[in-house]
């Protein structure tokens, strides 16, 4: 075998989380009162469109979470040695995008470096923009660049459209077979939006994603689509790699938050008395410490620990990963208070309801009352909080990395990209693409997450539900 799988801590947790989500989905399918709101989410065009965009991000993030190390060429087969560089399946899929390093900055789709240098030309040394090693290397002269870009874009567009139409055809064929209608009837239903699910939106969004993907894939084969950064790395590659960081922060932090928020929030509201007092004091104190300060302190402690115990981490990736995990944990510890307070209030209300009183009249134990009467009735709040907090956490990572207390500087993340671009904004002409790329990716992810969260909240909020 020429590769050695590497399971980082966050990888393991991400896949545990994935398994948990799948189990939960299976459980939800069997519970009518939980399935109904999800069906309502699935009927909302906006939420479904957003979910598709999110799905693209999630797939990239998951592919990027399957790590391995390559065997060093020439190492003996019986005692293989592996590269110190940890790669992921995603790296293998994007191929040369990772390795095509330029010397330094270059603009998006450029064929020359951003800065002038002394170059040898016809035996003479002149000061000019040198050609890039990879970007536009196939072009003979600058005049070919624009037609080539246009040609590649159109090719990508057509490929994307063809793929979209093909998929649509497959969908139509499958649906027609399943529902035993004629193709014409199905198409007219689809056009009028009478299918009971937002088929139009799904088809349009999928086609759009395929077109964008096709264009980018075509262009990326010959150019640096989003330019290169200070050390000449492809910004598109960095941005795509940052997706995993953002998703890990957004989801794993929630994993830390949930037990604290649910356990303490419900306990405070249900038991009241001194339990309530203690929990309230804890979260009031925690809330009054500036979050950034606490996070900075915790991250620095972890950093010191990593540096004083180098033998525990065999690769740089493992070191960066443990810091990412620490960041998730500390952000989780500082951010459970809001949800806990919400759940406390709801439990305070629920515990006085007659069905809880009736259960107490039977002498049902507290654990069972919480498990069967309180938790199922606050579960919608938990779900709404998870999806609403996600985007906030992604943005928080960017801010923290920008301040310098976020993820490891060697880790790809949008916060680090912004941090790196900060000083270059003063240059003339301005180096905007790094910042712009981070902004665009974050915007797409957070907007999709927020639109999806809106759909989930509308479907689960009982007050909203009553009006419809």
């Amino acid at each position, binding site marked *: 075998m020429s590769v050695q799988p590497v399971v980082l801590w966050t990888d393991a947790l991400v896949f545990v989380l994935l398994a948990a989500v799948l189990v939960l989905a299976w459980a939800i399918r069997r519970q*009518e009162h939980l399935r109904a709101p999800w069906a309502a989410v699935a009927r909302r065009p906006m939420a479904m469109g957003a979910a598709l965009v999110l799905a693209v991000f999630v797939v990239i993030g998951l592919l990027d979470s399957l790590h391995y190390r390559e065997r060093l060429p020439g190492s003996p087969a019986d005692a293989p040695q592996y590269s110190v560089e940890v790669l992921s399946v995603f790296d293998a899929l994007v191929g040369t995008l990772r390795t095509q390093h330029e010397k330094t900055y270059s603009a998006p789709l450029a064929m020359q470096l951003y800065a002038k240098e002394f170059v040898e030309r016809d035996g003479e040394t002149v000061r000019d923009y040198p050609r890039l090693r990879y970007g536009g290397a196939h072009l003979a002269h600058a005049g070919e660049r624009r037609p080539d870009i246009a040609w590649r874009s159109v090719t990508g567009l057509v490929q994307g459209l063809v793929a979209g139409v093909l998929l649509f055809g497959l969908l139509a064929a499958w649906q027609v077979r399943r529902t035993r209608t004629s193709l014409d009837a199905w198409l007219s239903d689809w056009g009028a939006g009478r299918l009971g699910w937002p088929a139009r939106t799904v088809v349009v969004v999928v086609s759009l994603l395929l077109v964008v993907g096709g264009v980018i894939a075509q262009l990326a084969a010959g150019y640096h689509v989003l330019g290169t950064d200070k050390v000449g790395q492809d910004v598109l590659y960095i941005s795509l790699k940052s997706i995993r960081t953002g998703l890990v922060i957004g989801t794993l932090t929630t994993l830390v938050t949930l037990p604290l928020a649910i356990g303490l929030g419900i306990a405070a509201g249900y038991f009241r008395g001194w339990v309530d007092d203690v929990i309230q004091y804890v979260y009031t104190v925690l809330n009054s410490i500036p979050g950034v300060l606490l996070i900075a302190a915790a991250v620095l402690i972890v950093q010191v620990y990593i540096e004083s115990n180098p033998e525990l981490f065999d690769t740089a990736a493992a070191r960066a990963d443990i810091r990412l995990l620490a960041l998730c944990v500390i952000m989780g510890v500082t951010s459970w208070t809001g949800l806990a307070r919400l759940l406390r209030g709801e439990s305070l209300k629920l515990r006085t309801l*007659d*069905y809880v009183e009736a259960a107490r009249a039977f002498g049902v134990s507290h654990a*069972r009352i919480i498990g069967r009467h309180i938790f199922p009735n606050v579960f919608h709040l938990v779900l709404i909080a998870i999806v609403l907090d996600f985007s906030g956490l992604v943005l928080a990572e960017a801010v923290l990395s920008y301040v310098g207390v976020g993820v490891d500087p060697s880790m790809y993340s949008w916060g680090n990209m912004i941090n790196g671009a900060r000083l270059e904004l003063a240059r003339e002409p301005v180096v905007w693409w790094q910042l712009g790329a981070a902004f665009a990716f974050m915007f797409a992810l957070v907007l999709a997450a927020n639109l999806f969260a809106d759909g989930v909240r509308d479907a689960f909020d009982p007050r909203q539900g009553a009006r419809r």
Partner: protein
Amino acid sequence: MSALLEVRGLVTDIGAARVVDGVSFDVAAGETYALLGESGCGKSMTALSLMRLLPDGGRVTSGTVGLDGENLLALPERAMRTVRGGRMAMIFQEPMLALNPVIKVGEQIGEALALHQSLSGAAARDAARALLDAVGVPDAARRLDAYPFELSGGLRQRAMIAIALAGKPQLLIADEPTTALDVTIQAQVLEVLRNLKAERRMGMLLITHDLGVVAENADRVGVMYAGELLEEGTREAFFAAPQHPYSRMLFDALPRPGDGGRLTTIPGQVPQLDGALAGCRFEPRCPHAVARCRVESPDWQTLGGQRVRCHLAGQLPAQPSRAAAARAMATQAAQPLLQVDGLKVHFPVRRGLLQRTVGHVRAVDDVSLAIEAGRTLALVGESGCGKTTVGKALLRLTEPTAGSVVLDGEAVTARNLAALRRQLQMVFQDPFSSLNPRMRVADILLEGMDALGVGAAGQRRAAVARLLQQVGLPDDAGGRYPHAFSGGQRQRIAIARALAVSPRLVICDEPTSALDVSVQAQILNLLKDLQDALGLAYLFITHNLAVVEYLAHQLAVMYLGRIVEHGPAAEVLRAPRHPYTQALVSAVPRIEPHAGGTVIRLAGDQPSPLNPPDGCHFHPRCPHAGEICRRTYPDRTELGDGHWVRCHWVAGQV
């Protein structure tokens, strides 16, 4: 008499549902027209259509609403705003929700005065005071500066009426104006409305589900069912001989004194209004229905002073007068199943930084009760008198402060609580909040059996099926969730849950107050059947004296945490001795004309249990109070046959 309000063929849709379908009626000036019907029949929607205040998605599809000859439905919204509150005002059911809690009462009245009479400053203040005086608010000048939360429920409803009167309306729409109030307060508010109507020659549209309120207040009555008017007539004619089967069944469903038999129930439910309805809407529930009813919607027919929409109008058999069978009251000298002595529940009131206890709310203060096996004790009182707390303290859902509870000869302590809970269970008031919406009915019924270890685990499923059958629910109900059931069915589930552990005593906390009259009759019948079949004893907590008359053997009247009168139910209700019981009994609106005796109207409200008056708690409201009542709390005065009362006046000490 020319009509003030003329409604013709009013049709209102909300979404796909036709909630009001072709309703026509008139209200003359100085007349009270009552719209009567069960919940979901479109009464409130009719009123909101008149005001053009329909909820989102609702619109008046056709018809005219003439107020003094002017068609309101044709008015532009701008003109309509001066009509609302100006010529036509509305009072809502829940006074706490209709008043803004952060604005003083005087300012809220002033707002209406400024809008409709262009009054401001001192003139507005004087006018507001005059209005509060007119609706019978004592100490009106001071109340102007009070916030709504400082007023009791009855005063709040009067403030609402004052606001409604600020525009000098010609027509007052009162949507269940007293449903949220206690009987003594209800009597006060209804009297205010009657007087105002007479003084100002207003027309009044009274919307209610309570036949008693209609009987005492209305001049003419319209019965609504499923969005249609079914019957209309003067009060006298309607109460003498209701013509429509639905109206008749409403009467029969009411529990009445001395009525030992079963109540008539109306099977089924009000139909869904979003489907196409052919034929008579009441046909599926009507015992007299013939084939014609199913296909042809009946037209109006005039019978003397009444109009009725029924194919069989005039052909129905005359109503048999119900035999006032005296109930066999076998007085057993059995050992009491439950004996409560000196029960007290005091809630500490804490204030300040250190949460020091500065006082106690004496919710229950020295209550003693006894219930025999297979008998029913009714605990009656107005809201806030502590009757629910008694029930919860017996089950130890609220920890009692003092007192002893002996169940079947065994003192109940914290240690043998499980045994207590097998013997004693509770049915709650609101069937919508007493069933967990996230649990299947079978799981709800199993919960108690699992927790208390009743029966072998393998037999519990069979027990669930038996319980469902016992309370008259279909066999497949166990697999469904509570939201699939109507209010009455939910209350059946709640009763089945209590019966699951085979208790000997069931505490029923107002089990029918959230239900319609016809459904109430079903539940009362069920409770009675279960008592006969299983020998259950009930502690029946209620404010509804009619239900007490029907169901209870013994009666205890509570006022401010204490029992003031106790005795055999029939005797106490027929000849109440305590002034409070007398007022309570006389305040209940009755269908039958009062047989002599003037109605006793109580002044004021129940005082706060945080700071009860010295001496007899009732003396500030008592018409007979003397000096001794202000100083000492009265002892029991035995009147024989287990009937006793705590009153100096009855004891002859005043």
